[in-house]
């Protein structure tokens, strides 16, 4: 039998395998790719490439190939054929939609062009030799066989991986949780540049946990399909073809205005969704699984290509590291799990819950956090990577000017925090990671780390735990603020249940982290957390009160935000061994800075670009008025009337304009400056070095609104030329058949 020796054998030439082979070949490895198919070959798939996938393919030099493909601007979720919501990819990113027959060929070509060797055949057996070599026995047709000997094997042979069957025959195969089926269809009308998602998915009177999709692959050609979870493990799936036919029929009937006639272009094909990722079973000493063979399909969205490519590239990185530095391939699974925390999680419970909400789909447009598949798709699909969030970026920039250990301390806090969330509460990962990071969490953590440095300490494990505890407090009031106030339908109840579960998770994590430092730290945290609860209730009590006084506002901010800053600064000082009086100064610094920070947040909210103002709108609708709003309402009687009457989406710009005209924002900016000054003074009283990390933090908080001032001036200058482009809000709710109706926001 012919024998071929190589560095790495990659079994399966789909996106994961070819991407891995391409990366390895580029780095000079000898790579042999095996696949039983002649390329190009068809593959059942939605064909959708998210911006993440597009970026990854760019690294393989496929930009030019993709430039010819159908452009995708974002998602459009259509509810019950009556309402729709468009989520554009942020920051001008674009997705693409390419039939797999072409895409897979292109990635394979990229691998071959870099020197990978292709063998058509079927891997039949895998042996690991004593000599740290693996042998893949391959049948090449017509009775010909080939022995491929390599140092590593990458198994990327799809959802029904034969390699997994060979290597892990003893592991019971998990029941497939989800399936998808798709066909290509010609539409009479030209398609829009969106991934269309249709919910709810209903077949023969039964709602299925999943969604239907229409993804454009050309001007009048669409990939139309349905994907859904099994309702119960014991259930038979409703027949896939029946489900797809029903969906297409529904589109013909209810979406005629959008598509015109819809003609099938061939027989649809279905496949299981490989969502059964398991870190430990993804790699061993000489073998890694990638793509569907590793079960990397996103169980939330059903997206498979981007994670497959990413896992293939990570496999290449790990193989490279094992060649260069002898790092075991066994670490691959864990690395992949950290990089893609949703992989392998069972989200069918959310999907199941979503189908229980018979009234849910119509009211999806209320701004609730995560509600089963529809909203999860909205929140996650539009946000494959956590948005470059202003705090992360700002804190990173802030730390840039600081000594390296400060930044390193922050890095480790962030890493551990995310890993912790991802491993212990996967269901909440998307929500809690986002809420923690976008609501001051990193700033709390930075305060603690900076305080340790300022008072002459080195942040160790205890500082990292304290920073985590502080950061976990950030989402608590934000989440509880999302509890429904009045009407409690099924949807609101589900929302509230999730909110409470996640908030409890956050607070219990906070307590757990701080209790590892010691009883004294735990008492301090409890003190801060209690004040946060008080402030939450005070804010709630003052809702819709336009006569809320500035003192009352500051009192609640001192409790809600100042207390956590004070906790962080005080604990940091204490961990650095500062004297009791210095610790007291640090706490006072924290309290002052907290107020300055929140006031600057209020200002930023008012100057945010249009898509950021949906947060402002929600606050105004909920009657939660920030300081500038209160001051402005005190000066402008008509504004007060407008706010009392209820604010619509279209009015938001005008209201912001009115607030600006009252000069309220200058007052608040004055408050920021004053509090930053007091914070500096508190530090001076502690007799720290004149230049220190906490002063740096205070300067940063003070400067946030300066930048804002500049930004506004620039915006004013560019307004004339840019107004046309800014005319369409990025995140719009639109009512399909009754235009102008504003109830989508209620």
């Amino acid at each position, binding site marked *: 039998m012919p024998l071929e020796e190589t560095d790495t054998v990659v079994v399966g030439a789909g996106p994961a395998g070819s991407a891995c082979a391409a990366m390895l070949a580029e780095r000079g490895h000898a790579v042999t790719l095996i696949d039983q198919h002649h390329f190009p070959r068809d593959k059942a798939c939605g064909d959708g490439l998210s911006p993440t996938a597009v970026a990854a393919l760019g690294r393989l030099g496929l930009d030019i190939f993709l430039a010819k493909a159908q452009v995708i601007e974002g998602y459009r979720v259509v509810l019950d054929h009556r309402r729709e919501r468009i989520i554009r990819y942020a920051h001008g990113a674009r997705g693409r939609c390419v039939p797999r027959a072409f895409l897979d060929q292109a990635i394979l070509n990229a691998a071959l062009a870099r020197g990978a060797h292709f063998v058509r055949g079927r891997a039949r057996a895998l042996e690991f030799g004593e000599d740290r070599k693996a042998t893949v026995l391959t049948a090449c047709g017509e009775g010909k066989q080939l022995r491929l000997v390599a140092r590593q094997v990458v198994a990327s042979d799809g959802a029904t991986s034969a390699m997994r069957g060979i290597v892990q025959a003893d592991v019971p195969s998990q029941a497939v949780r989800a399936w998808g089926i798709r066909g290509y269809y010609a539409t009479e009308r030209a398609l829009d540049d969106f991934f269309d998602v249709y919910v709810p998915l209903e077949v023969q009177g039964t709602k299925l946990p999943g969604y239907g999709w229409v993804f454009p692959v050309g001007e009048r050609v669409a990939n139309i399909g349905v994907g859904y979870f099994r*309702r*119960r*493990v*014991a259930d038979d799936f409703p027949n896939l073809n029946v489900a797809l036919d029903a969906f297409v029929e529904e589109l013909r009937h209810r979406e005629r205005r959008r598509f015109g006639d819809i003609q099938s272009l061939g027989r649809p094909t279905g496949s299981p969704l490989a969502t059964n990722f398991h870190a430990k079973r993804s790699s061993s000493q000489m073998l890694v699984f990638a793509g569907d063979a590793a079960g990397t399909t996103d169980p939330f969205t059903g997206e498979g290509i981007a994670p497959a490519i990413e896992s293939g590239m990570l496999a290449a990185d790990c193989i490279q590291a094992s060649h260069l530095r002898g790092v075991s391939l066994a670490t691959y699974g864990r690395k992949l799990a950290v990089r893609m925390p949703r992989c392998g999680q*069972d989200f069918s*419970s959310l999907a*199941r*819950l979503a189908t*229980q909400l*018979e009234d849910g789909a119509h009211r999806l447009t209320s701004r609730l956090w995560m509600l089963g598949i529809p909203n999860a798709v909205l929140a996650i699909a539009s946000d494959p990577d956590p948005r470059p969030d202003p705090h992360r970026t700002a804190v990173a920039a802030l730390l840039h000017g600081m000594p390296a250990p400060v930044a390193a301390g922050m890095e480790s806090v962030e890493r551990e925090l995310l890993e912790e969330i991802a491993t*212990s*509460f996967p*269901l909440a990962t998307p929500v809690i990671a986002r809420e923690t990071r976008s609501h001051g969490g990193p700033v709390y953590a930075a305060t603690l780390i900076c305080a340790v440095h300022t008072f002459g300490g080195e942040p160790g494990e205890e500082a990292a735990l304290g920073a985590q505890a502080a950061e976990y407090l950030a989402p*608590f009031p934000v989440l*509880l*603020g999302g*509890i*429904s*106030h009045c009407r*409690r339908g099924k949807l609101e*109840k589900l929302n*509230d*249940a*999730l*909110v*409470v*579960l996640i*908030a*409890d*998770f956050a*607070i*219990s*994590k906070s*307590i*757990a982290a701080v*209790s*590892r430092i*010691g*009883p*004294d730290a*735990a*008492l301090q945290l*409890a*003190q801060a*957390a*209690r004040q*946060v*609860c*008080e*402030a*939450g*209730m*005070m804010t*709630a*009590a003052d809702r819709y009160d336009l006569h809320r006084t500035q003192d009352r506002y500051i009192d609640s901010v001192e*409790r809600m935000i100042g207390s956590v800053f004070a906790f962080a600064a005080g604990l940091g000082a204490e961990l650095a061994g500062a004297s009791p009086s210095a610790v007291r100064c640090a706490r006072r610094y924290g309290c002052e800075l907290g107020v300055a920070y929140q006031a600057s947040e209020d200002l930023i909210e008012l100057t945010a670009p249009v898509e950021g103002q949906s947060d402002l709108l929600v606050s105004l609708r909920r009657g939660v008025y920030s300081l500038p709003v209160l001051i402005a309402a005190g000066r402008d009687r008509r504004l007060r009337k407008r706010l009392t009457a209820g604010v619509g989406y279209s009015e938001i710009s005008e209201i912001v304009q009115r607030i600006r005209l009252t000069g309220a924002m200058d007052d608040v900016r004055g408050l920021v400056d004053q509090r930053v000054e007091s914070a500096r003074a508190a530090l001076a009283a502690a007799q720290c070095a004149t230049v220190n990390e906490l002063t740096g933090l205070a300067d940063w908080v003070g400067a946030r609104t300066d930048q804002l001032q500049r930004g506004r001036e620039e915006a004013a200058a560019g307004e004339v030329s840019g107004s046309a482009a800014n005319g369409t809000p990025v995140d719009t709710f639109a009512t399909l058949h009754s235009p102008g109706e504003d109830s989508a926001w209620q």
Partner: protein
Amino acid sequence: MNQAVGRQPTINGSPYEICLVSREEIVLAANAGELASELSEPVGYVLATTGKRLRSAIVLSSAHAGPDPHHQDVRTGAIAIELGHLATLAHDDILDDGTVRRGTDTVGVAYGSLASGYVGGALVVRASELMATFGEEPMRVFARTAAEMCSGQMAEFEDSFDTTRSVERYYLAIAGKTASLFEVAAWLGGWLAGAPTATVNSLARFGREFGMAFQIADDILDVLAPISETGKLQAKDLLQGVYSLPVIYALQTDRELGAALEQPLTQADLPKLVARIRASGGVVLASHECFRRARRAQSIVHEELEPAVATSLAALVEQSIAPITRRMKPKHADAA
């Protein structure tokens, strides 16, 4: 609700004179008076609905396994555990959409769901604060328990409307949401009273088994007892998609029940479903499991602790499962 002050209830069947913690003591330890009025009012409302105070009774009883059962910390510890429990009740009302608890409106109805959220937060934080005053070990044990309770709730939530929920998944959920607090209650009493490590460990194991038995009994009562007895709608859990042990057993024997549960349900469907669950033998099987756990809890204390303490703790178990015993064992009353 309005018991005369001064006549403190004690534990029936216990050889000790154990005064349960009073509402006044709880309010005082919760520091409710110190809180901002917006929070102190709903907190006070929740504290006023304190019920049987079973978990604090466990702390007080198990303290007799140590040399110093009347140490002031023991009472404070009992209150801390009670506060932890009240915190979960406030949040349970949101999770299971409760409107009535112990005959009165829930805090969510009286002050809004948001108040339930913050009251729960404030109480759990206060409980952790009290635990921290006892030192490193109680604090860490409590922090672990709080996390366990969360993950138990989460497991239950994840399983909701899953008619294939397994017995194991059910145990996983109740071990977290209920048994972990019973465990820490029993442990804490012994620890604070200065009991030796082996005794404290026995108490912890007792607490866990007791907690499991208690929750199973509670779930059986949900199916069996009319609203007049429990203060909540009979078999309400079914509407929430929470399938507890009797229902899981019933689903295993009655193959058609799953489909029936998956239909959109209303209150009117409940009596018929309850009848089916009973007919399938689900309630009987679940009661056996409840009794088995209760016996195990009692045998741990009888074998490993002083007779007087054991009697006291065993009596608590007996009282907790009495509603089930009454219903399920009328014909073999002598067998027990």
